[in-house]
């Protein structure tokens, strides 16, 4: 069982060593986290092989649960749960993380904060592994925040410049909004069920401890967390800005793993989702998919194109889960991690050489595609791996992307067309996004790698060293179909190992329908139809449609951009002047401006109100009480100086006066004493005689 703790804690150890000793170690200590994540990868591989050889959908290893907090009425437990989903996630995280560590040794070479970068990668790997290993929502939330923190640290890695510093703040704050909902959701579940543990929560939902609108609300609140973390509409605005971080970070955190945490969360909470919540989730996913892909069409920053592509693909995953294509959604998470990480690392490879070529010329943006062109010959490995990943992302056959994306689209078509035609918008948005995906990705390729170079200085560009190309080759090969399924169109081991869990609300729904309509007749016919998964019905039409759309998207891009990059760039510049649509796309549908004008403005106005309230009401009360206190103190001082001190002085003065009088008696003359003695005796004798 220690194997899980080792996987979890090794990256943390790497982080600790890097933070405290990194700068003193040879090579900035980059080999420490590299070794740690390497060992974690080997251990994860062992678990994965164990899961694969068991080949059981119910494969499960538990470590714990241990009682963490005993509240007498409830016991809060912690533990590790490794089922097929976790073992697959472990592979995704450790493989991408290991390759990004390797890649960074070259990419970040010479950076003054080189060793700190590896330390941050270490804490991110730790948090992400923790996120997939834990067995309850509370710890999931803890690691969820930890990945948010590491993301913040890594986006703002070059915090000396304004843009990364602001981007990191934006990412953190936008995520905060989603996490608030997430926490409320967890608390609703805990309130009704009294446990955070996945299995107990599922069981609690199944036995009806929570149902109806409250269950829908709990599901949607949890989903808020996913909206924030997975950059779904309307909280998608942080992800493109997060591209200010170093490119390996974008590949690891903002493409492959952390943003997929939201999808992972939806996978974990799938059994508690109600049909209403599912509809909301699928709409959010579909809107995000179409939104991201439309914006990506009109971007020039190579990383921003990929960022919007990521948003769009995350939308696909969420949509897939929302329409009930559970396995497809999760499958797409895995395949997307490989090819999107490959695309990001490829773009990093290009940017690295662009920096090299343009040197210290700060007037040229090395990430702007308009400054590239004709890189195919100069960077062959980068180009070919990039092409493979693009083909996979566009969903062409023989790639992993085809397998997963096609299944999602089939699910969407089954849900919105064959299942319930009033949700027809969902498959329409999904398929449009597929068309656009192929278009903008091939636009990116043709503008970056084909045509004439835009500058003479690009002659200096050459292929990067092995530390950067090996990760590209590995990830590109992981984008091919045979890792996931022996047949390029079939369902491989993935579908055997990951099974869609039963949803309590759906079960209840059927039972209720049966109760209302009787056990036979319309209801049972409907139920039978629903049990006959519409996704299967939609399988081949969806496949055909998606291939057609991918091909036509590619074809349009080819017609427009192939070897015509100068003309097209000029045409687009002209379009920017003329067309409001293109401007809107280039400006991300003005989301940032909209939020600035509404929420930000409202917050700023509210700020003024609060400031006024603070200055006049709160400060007023404080000042008034201070005034009263001062007056009281003055009175008190008066009482003290006059009455108390007066009494004391009176006593003292009296004593001094009496002493002064009495000292006259003490003359020091012998004869006075004798006379007084005599007088005293006489007085006593007289007194004796009288009495």
């Amino acid at each position, binding site marked *: 069982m220690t194997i899980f703790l080792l996987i979890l804690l090794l990256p943390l150890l790497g982080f600790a060593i890097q933070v405290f000793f990194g700068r003193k170690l040879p090579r900035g200590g980059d080999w420490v986290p590299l070794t740690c994540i390497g060992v974690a990868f080997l251990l994860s591989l062992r678990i994965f092989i164990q899961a694969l050889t068991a080949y059981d959908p119910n494969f499960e290893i538990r470590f714990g649960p241990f009682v963490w907090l005993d509240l007498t009425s409830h016991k809060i437990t912690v533990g590790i749960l490794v089922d097929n989903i976790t073992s697959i996630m472990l592979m995704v995280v450790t493989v991408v993380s290991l390759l990004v560590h390797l890649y960074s040794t070259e990419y970040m070479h010479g950076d003054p904060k080189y060793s700190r970068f590896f330390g941050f990668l270490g804490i991110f790997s730790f948090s992400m592994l923790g996120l997939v290993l834990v067995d309850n929502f509370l710890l999931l939330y803890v690691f969820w925040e930890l990945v948010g923190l590491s993301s913040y640290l890594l986006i703002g890695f070059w915090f000396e410049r304004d843009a990364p510093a602001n981007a990191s703040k934006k990412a953190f704050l936008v995520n905060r909004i989603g996490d608030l909902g997430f926490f409320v959701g967890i608390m609703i579940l805990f309130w009704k069920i009294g446990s955070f543990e996945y299995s107990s929560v599922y069981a609690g939902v199944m036995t009806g401890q929570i149902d109806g609108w409250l269950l829908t609300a709990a599901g949607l609140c949890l989903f808020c967390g996913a909206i924030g973390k997975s950059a779904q509409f309307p909280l998608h605005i942080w992800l493109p800005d997060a591209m200010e971080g170093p490119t390996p970070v974008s590949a690891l955190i903002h493409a492959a793993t952390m943003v997929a945490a939201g999808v992972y969360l939806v996978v974990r909470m799938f059994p508690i989702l109600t049909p209403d919540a599912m509809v909301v989730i699928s709409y959010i996913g579909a809107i995000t998919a179409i939104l991201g892909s439309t914006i990506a069409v009109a971007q020039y920053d190579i990383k921003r194109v990929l960022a919007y592509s990521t948003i769009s693909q995350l939308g696909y995953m969420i949509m897939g889960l929302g329409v009930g294509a559970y396995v497809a959604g999760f499958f797409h998470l895995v395949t997307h991690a490989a090819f999107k990480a490959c695309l990001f690392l490829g773009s990093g490879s290009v940017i690295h050489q662009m920096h090299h070529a343009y040197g210290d010329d700060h007037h040229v943006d090395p990430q702007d595609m308009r400054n590239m062109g004709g890189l195919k010959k100069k960077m062959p490995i980068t180009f070919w791996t990039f092409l493979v990943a693009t083909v996979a992302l566009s969903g062409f056959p023989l790639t992993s992307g085809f397998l997963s994306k096609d299944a999602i689209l089939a699910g969407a078509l089954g849900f919105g067309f064959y299942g319930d035609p009033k949700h027809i918008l969902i498959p329409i948005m999904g398929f449009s996004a597929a068309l656009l995906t192929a278009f903008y990705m091939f636009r990116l390729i043709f503008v970056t790698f084909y045509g004439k170079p835009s500058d003479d200085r690009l002659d200096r560009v050459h292929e990067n060293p092995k530390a950067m190309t090996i990760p590209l080759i590995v990830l590109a090969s992981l984008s091919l179909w045979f890792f996931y399924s022996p047949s390029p169109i079939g369902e491989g081991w993935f579908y055997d190992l990951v099974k869609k869990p039963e949803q309590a609300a759906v079960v209840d729904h059927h039972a209720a329908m049966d109760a209302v309509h009787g056990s036979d007749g319309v209801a049972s016919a409907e139920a039978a139809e629903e049990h006959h998964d519409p996704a299967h019905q939609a399988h081949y039409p969806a496949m055909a449609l998606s291939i057609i759309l991918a091909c036509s998207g590619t074809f349009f891009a080819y017609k427009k951009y192939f070897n015509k990059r100068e003309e097209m760039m000029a045409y687009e510049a002209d379009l920017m002047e003329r067309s409001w649509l293109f401007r809107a796309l280039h400006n991300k549908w003005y989301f940032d401006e909209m939020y600035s004008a509404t929420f930000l403005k409202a917050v700023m106005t509210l700020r003024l109100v609060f400031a006024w309230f603070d200055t006049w009401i709160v400060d007023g009360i404080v000042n008034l009480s201070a005034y009263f206190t001062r007056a009281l103190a003055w009175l008190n001082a008066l009482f003290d100086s006059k009455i108390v001190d007066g009494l004391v002085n009176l006593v003292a003065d009296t004593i001094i006066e009496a002493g002064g009088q*009495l*000292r*006259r*008696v*003490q*003359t*020091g*003359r*012998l*004869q006075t004493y*004798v*006379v007084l003695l*005599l007088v005293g005796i006489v007085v006593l004798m007289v007194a004796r005689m009288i009495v």
Partner: protein
Amino acid sequence: MIGLEHYLIISAMLFSLGILAVSTRRNAISVLMGVELILNAGNINLVAFSKFSDIGLNGQVFALFVIILAAAEAAVALAIVLNIYRNHQTVTVDRMDSLSG
């Protein structure tokens, strides 16, 4: 016939003269002499009461003690007066007021 009253009157006169000397004389030696008068007035009383009552010789013995005491007292007091004279060049009691409060 001489009775107890006569002795007592003599003794009272002697005592009064002693007091007068102690309280009015300026010279320390004179004051000491006044003290001797007071002590001897006491002695006369002791002897007289002894003679006119049935307590035997107790009064006489007591008087003897007083005489010895007076001798000792005179020796000590004269030594003190002598020392005072050495230090202050005077034996006037009015001037000796260093115990004044």
